[in-house]
């Protein structure tokens, strides 16, 4: 008898869920919202600011070419190399800036932790795929571009279930 009761309860649970809302995120048409601007690090307090670890953004008016980000990445993924740039600034006389290879980057954010000049942050941009491996190497000028990230939906919970809406 308990098996029959168990069977009926299982079927009942299955039928009940026909009325619960679907949870799927329809990805290319809907994209998730993020709180905040991306992962940042404050070298004075030594604590980061919570955010999504996406593509990096390099502020050219703050980067001094000290190579600390490249040194931090050497043991992890070796994704940052320093390259020569065309202009020189007062704060960057050596005229070198980091170039990040997203084919190797693991998005751990330790390079952001290493930068003492508030020059390297991470943004919300995660759609970085390309057709060739060379296109994944982002030069310093490409890194300086602020990303446009579409943000539509987040998880909403109501009494008929959770949904991405």
């Amino acid at each position, binding site marked *: 008898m308990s098996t029959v009761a*168990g069977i009926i309860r299982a079927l009942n649970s299955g039928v009940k869920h026909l009325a619960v809302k679907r949870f799927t995120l329809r990805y290319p048409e809907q994209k998730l919202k993020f709180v905040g601007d991306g992962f940042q690090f404050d070298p004075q307090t030594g*604590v980061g600011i919570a955010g999504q670890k996406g593509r990096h953004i390099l502020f050219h008016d703050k980067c001094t070419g000290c190579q600390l980000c490249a040194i931090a990445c050497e043991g992890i993924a070796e994704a940052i190399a320093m390259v020569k740039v065309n202009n020189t600034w007062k704060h960057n006389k050596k005229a070198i800036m980091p170039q990040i290879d997203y084919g190797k980057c*693991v998005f751990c954010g330790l390079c952001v932790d290493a930068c003492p000049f508030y020059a390297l942050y991470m943004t919300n941009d995660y759609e970085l795929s390309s057709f060739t491996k060379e296109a994944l190497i982002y030069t310093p000028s490409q890194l300086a571009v602020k990303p446009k990230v579409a943000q539509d939906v987040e998880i909403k919970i109501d009494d008929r279930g959770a949904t991405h809406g």
Partner: protein
Amino acid sequence: MITQLPPGMQLERVDERIMTLNVGPQHPGSGHMRLIIKVDGDYIVSCDPDPGYVHRGEEKMAEYRNYIQNIPHLERPVIHDSCNILYPYCLAVEELLGIEVPERAKYIRVIASELNRCVYTLYWLSIYGIFLGHSTMFMWPMGDRELLIDLLEALSGARVTHAYFVPGGVRNDTPSNFEERCLRQVNYFEKRLKEYEDIFYQNPVLKQRTEGTGILSRMDAIRLGTTGSVLRSAGVDFDIRKKEPYDVYENLDFQSQVLKEGDSYARSRVPYLDMLESCRIIKDALKKMPKSGSVRTKLKPNPKGGNDEAYRRVESGRGALGMYVVSDNKIEPYRVKISVGSFRNMICMPYLLKGEKLGNMPAVYWSLNYWPVEADR
């Protein structure tokens, strides 16, 4: 007359009744490891696990990276439970370098660790469902996992491989409306967990399939050296969070879940009960967390440990995860030894599967909570 065999090859007696099955790495019923099973009709005569397909040399590679660069490296064995595998490393390095962790960081660590435990257990439960042929139990935990991964993404910035814990605390503070979002989603998650009772745990077909199979007695569990949920489902009350509490577990109010039967059903139920406890722990920790405070102690640049060694262990989703760190006055550790729950529980596979029916093989094998990547490191 036995001719000389080349070294490394073995001569095996081929029997008429016994068929050798390769439940191999390319099989929908195994993880990334191989089980060489010899079957006589429907009964398994012997089972020989063959791990090592995903061995990378994690421990050796850890000797070439300094203490902070080891953080993204050492979390790779279990990518979705990454906080729990970094936890003993951070605790051991803190002991080596003599660092104090602030209170708020301890609470955040506990919350992240419990969330990760639920994320891993849901993944394991969904694969358990699909091994038994229950496609709904494959989809529901994967969907509910999204609720928790969303929280972890807000907290640490990445969905898996968070790289969130550092020796000295955590890398960043919680985002602005984290507490109420966490509370809301964890409450809904608890409601969803209760739905699993009817459709999975009280399902008569499931109970017929898993009850009484692969029974591990209490003495055998202790003798074989099992750990984690396998141990607790055999009747031994040993949860590291209770017996050797670390961080703030002694302030939090929870029970360790123990079941007595020791069969596959109990082994599949203990992680589920653990998840319900995790929800309680998270809610409790959110209440007791200090509202403000620093979350990281600043380290000196390029920290060096003295000629010292430290061993700490933590209860992860699979069992006791221990890290033994030896340093010799350099910025890289001299040796990092990872002692993993999955590898310890692997001894149960040949022991339990001998004499079982072939139909019970997925139920028993996956209920041992074995994660191949972690076992191979």
